[in-house]
């Protein structure tokens, strides 16, 4: 170890300064013990950047360890920039989901845009060509101008970034619930493709190998962004707007092409995005993975402005930068590739024998840590977990006793209300702002149960979907966690895909509150159970805590990003009906459950009761049935039954595709013993609506798999409209009337209300 002295001008290390860096007294003591002395200001900055929740997972790591991460298809599990799985024919898929909630809450356009940029880099640094983006978004009610502004800004930010880079945005979900007032969730997922032998890892290796800083120059933006993401949002957050980074998709596109060329060139051994906590995090993590020492000279990092201190250079979160470990002697070839793409590459350090993490400014050592202690010595916390009283009380509400409104005597009224509820209504207003067809692989784009992309050069396709119902997780985190997995699995299975693996983005409140940590532990336990039952291992993901605003915590929202594989293009199945005359079959069974439903939320403004039960054996058998029937060629369409229940699912089947609308004649008399609203709008799990020209064979396959199945009606012509007989009542509505409610709900809100002024203001920074 060398002598490290404070840099002239460094502030004195005081208890207040330590606190400002988000470190506790005991964490500070830990640092002093690790170093055998008081840290310098630069070292304090480094530790604060690495030991904040966002980078260190200090509250979540022990719980995450319980998730199943292994499987025959898994090539790379958690711990790298992205997970990688094999899909056959030597082709592999790299995928990961990540949050950008806090930046988006105060600067929606740039917050969302840089979220897209960051996750793209995580995928292409594995050597994968990004082929698809998804996003999972949560906002408060659109009744509020602030929420409309956030929604519009986030959608525009996602679109402008992804469209420019040329990666299609193909699926996702958007939910509106006042639980997300003040703290929207913006989770972006990127999916990339590579040949198995093209995989590269972010592991520093080879003593003497040079470390290069590649891409954009380093500026003073985004300093402490990661620690900002590790605290609750408050009134004061607005003042931290400068911590939000600014994205440049053009540079990203160049960096993407240059990085892939670099990886394929054989001149480098490792590459990593400089994401959260920038240079500090990328260099320390690469060194720890390779179990080697590194030395970085901040005076050699290309900067945007003179006079930047090592502290600033190390903590900057300037976008579109990469850290590369090249082979010794190949620096010039690396520079030439970057130069071709009008980018720069500078050698800023090297891999060394001595087991230290060292930062210099010219000859002066400004920070030094032993071995990989920075990463390995990070504290881990097991904090108390206890279910909150409010959650117990909500779950115990007898929702079956909820008094019906007078208007509900006409179930058609209820159906129309639900179709126009922003969470259920068509999200076309948003996804038409995303290029979903570039790269010409998109077979099923936004609006289907899951997106489907063909894999060029093979007969295969992949299916992708994100999902989570935060209301269920609020009411019962374990069941809610299970449902997030099984619903995303059902969604990809409806397209004909075998669910293969997941990535997850776990959005929760402040983990130091026992009721929040309880939600976290239980939801992870539910995810674990479902992933084991469905044999879909977890390949990575992200935890986002502190999603709280002055009005309280968000719904716990563990978003699941599911990847499925379709073994033949012939098996690709759509969610909407295909032919008049086809018979409609319900796989699975109706129940009397209405707890946690969209019906209760929209019609009664209530969140209560137990969420629907989730029988994992049934879900597995249901998926097996569905896939067997699809492969047998007897399924014309398949649609998952979820938000809004069976009546909404059938309505979507007839009119979600405006270019091909139908009618349907449905009889649900078999469930007359249940309450009418549970049959129509209850959200019993494990159900799929199928249309088929050979219903007998569907029933036979279901019987053989032990899955309940029943013919519930027939697909008719558009002019016939939708008729549902249930509970001795007849619900009748024109297809076009249902379509208008569903397709026009969000445009009516967004195009009528002023929210654009504030967006134009932020758009200026694009140039």
């Amino acid at each position, binding site marked *: 170890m060398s002598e490290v002295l404070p840099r002239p001008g460094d502030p004195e290390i005081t208890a207040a300064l330590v606190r400002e860096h988000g470190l506790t007294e005991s964490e500070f003591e830990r640092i002093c013990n690790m170093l055998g002395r008081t840290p310098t200001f630069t070292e304090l900055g480094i530790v604060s950047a690495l030991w904040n929740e966002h980078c260190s997972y200090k509250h979540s790591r022990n719980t995450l360890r319980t998730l199943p991460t292994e499987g025959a298809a898994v090539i790379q599990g958690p711990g790298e920039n992205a997970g990688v799985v094999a899909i056959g024919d030597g082709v592999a898929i790299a995928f990961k989901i990540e949050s950008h909630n806090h930046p988006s809450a105060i600067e929606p356009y740039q917050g969302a845009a840089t979220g897209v940029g960051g996750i793209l880099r995580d995928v292409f640094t594995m050597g994968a060509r990004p082929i698809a983006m998804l996003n999972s978004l949560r906002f408060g009610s659109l009744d509020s101008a602030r929420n409309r502004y956030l929604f519009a800004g986030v959608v*525009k930010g996602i679109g*402008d970034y992804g469209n*420019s*880079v040329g990666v299609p945005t193909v699926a996702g979900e958007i939910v509106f619930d006042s639980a997300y007032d003040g703290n929207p969730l913006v989770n972006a997922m990127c999916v990339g493709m590579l040949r198995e032998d093209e995989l590269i890892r972010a592991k520093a290796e080879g003593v003497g190998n040079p470390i290069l800083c590649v891409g954009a120059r380093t500026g003073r933006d985004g300093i402490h962004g990661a620690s900002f993401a590790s605290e609750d949002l408050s009134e004061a957050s607005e003042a931290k707007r400068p911590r939000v980074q600014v994205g440049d998709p053009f540079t990203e596109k160049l960096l993407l092409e240059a990085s892939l060329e670099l990886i394929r060139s054989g001149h480098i051994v490792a590459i990593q995005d400089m994401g959260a906590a920038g240079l500090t995090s990328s260099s320390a993590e690469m060194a720890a993975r390779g179990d080697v020492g590194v030395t970085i000279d901040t005076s050699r990092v290309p900067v945007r402005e003179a006079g930047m201190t090592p502290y600033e250079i190390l903590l900057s979160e300037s976008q579109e930068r990469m850290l590369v470990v090249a082979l010794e002697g190949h620096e010039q070839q690396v520079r030439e590739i970057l130069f071709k793409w009008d980018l720069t590459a500078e050698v800023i350090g090297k891999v060394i024998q001595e087991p230290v993490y060292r930062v210099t400014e010219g000859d002066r050592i400004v920070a030094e840590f032993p071995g990989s202690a920075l990463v390995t010595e990070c504290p881990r916390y097991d904090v108390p977990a206890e279910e909150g009283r409010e959650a117990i009380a909500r779950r115990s509400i007898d929702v079956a006793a909820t008094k019906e409104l007078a208007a509900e005597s006409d179930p058609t009224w209820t159906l129309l209300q639900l179709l126009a509820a922003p969470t259920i209504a068509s999200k076309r207003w948003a996804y*038409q702002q995303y290029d979903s067809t570039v790269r010409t692989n998109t077979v099923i784009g936004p609006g289907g149960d899951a997106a489907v992309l*063909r894999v060029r050069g093979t007969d295969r396709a992949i299916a992708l979907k994100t999902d989570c119902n935060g209301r269920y997780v609020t009411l019962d985190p374990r069941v809610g966690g299970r449902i997030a997995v099984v619903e995303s699995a059902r969604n990809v299975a409806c397209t004909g895909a075998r669910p293969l693996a997941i990535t997850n983005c776990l959005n929760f409140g402040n983990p130091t509150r026992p009721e929040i940590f309880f939600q976290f532990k239980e939801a992870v336990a539910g995810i674990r159970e479902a992933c084991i039952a469905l044999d879909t291992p977890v390949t990575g993901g992200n935890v986002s805590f502190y999603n709280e605003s002055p009005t309280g915590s968000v719904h716990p929202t563990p978003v699941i990003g599911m990847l499925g594989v379709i073994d033949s293009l012939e098996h690709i199945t759509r969610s909407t009906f295909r032919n008049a005359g086809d018979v409609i079959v319900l796989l699975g069974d109706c129940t009397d459950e209405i707890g946690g439903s969209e019906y209760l939320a929209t019609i009664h403004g209530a969140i209560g009761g137990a969420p629907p039960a989730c029988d994992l054996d049934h879900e597995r058998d249901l998926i097996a049935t569905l896939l067997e029937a699809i492969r047998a060629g007897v399924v014309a369409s398949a649609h998952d039954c979820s938000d809004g229940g069976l009546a909404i699912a059938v309505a979507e089947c007839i009119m979600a595709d405006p270019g091909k609308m139908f009618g349907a004649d449905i009889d649900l008399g078999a469930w007359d013993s249940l309450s009418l609203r549970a049959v129509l709008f209850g959200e019993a799990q494990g159900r799929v609506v199928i249309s088929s020209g050979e219903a007998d064979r569907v029933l036979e396959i279901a019987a053989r798999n032990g899955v309940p199945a029943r013919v519930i009606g027939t697909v008719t012509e558009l002019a016939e409209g939708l008729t549902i007989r249930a509970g001795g009542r007849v619900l009748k509505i024109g297809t076009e009337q249902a379509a208008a409610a569903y397709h026009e709900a969000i445009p009516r809100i967004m195009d009528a209300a002023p929210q654009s002024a504030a967006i134009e203001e932020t758009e200026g920074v694009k140039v």
Partner: protein
Amino acid sequence: MKFGVVTFPGSNGDYDACHAAADAIGRECVYLWHKDHDLKGCDVIVLPGGFSYGDYLRPGAIARFSPIMNEVVVHAKRGAPVLAICNGFQVACEAGLLPGALLRNASLRFVSRLVTMRVENDSSMFTHEYYKGQILSVPVAHGDGRYTADPDVVARLEGEGRVAFRYSSTGGDVSDEDNINGSVNGIAGIINAAGNVLGMMPHPERAVDPVIGSTDGLGVFHSLLDGVTA
């Protein structure tokens, strides 16, 4: 016949255009680097979609100064075909290969969807495989696609049959409702006076394979095949 697709920094439709030429009609296709001066003996030059130079300053305004554009202009001046799609259309207008300009969509929002458009010219080297009035379903994906030009230029384009495609309903009607970006007269694509440069906002190269939803863009490529000798 050999296709050459120009890759500007920020192009992202180059890959799709090359695949359309190679996979859908089985012709050789090469990428042409923006810093080069060599068209590599290509018969058809494609200026592809994307965000050349990030669309900074103005879409196409910087790309048109790329070294390769000198050669593309020479190629066009001698009457050889140039297919300019989306951002390529914007580059072609900036380079003076086509009249007019593409402004921000009237909605002020990016629009990505399958649109229907009506074939207006069925005799050019890009469109003779179609018939006049034919309705095509082709994807669009752009933020700056509102075609505009001086009234006399528009009158000349209309009078000389140089409007290649017009946004329409599935029944072929042209109205404000189907005009997805507010283009003058619903213009989706135009041809230069010599008939060898086509600029269009919709993406024919994304509509060449039934698996991805439409094959209505194939006609552009087939027309070129029949009309151009190698």
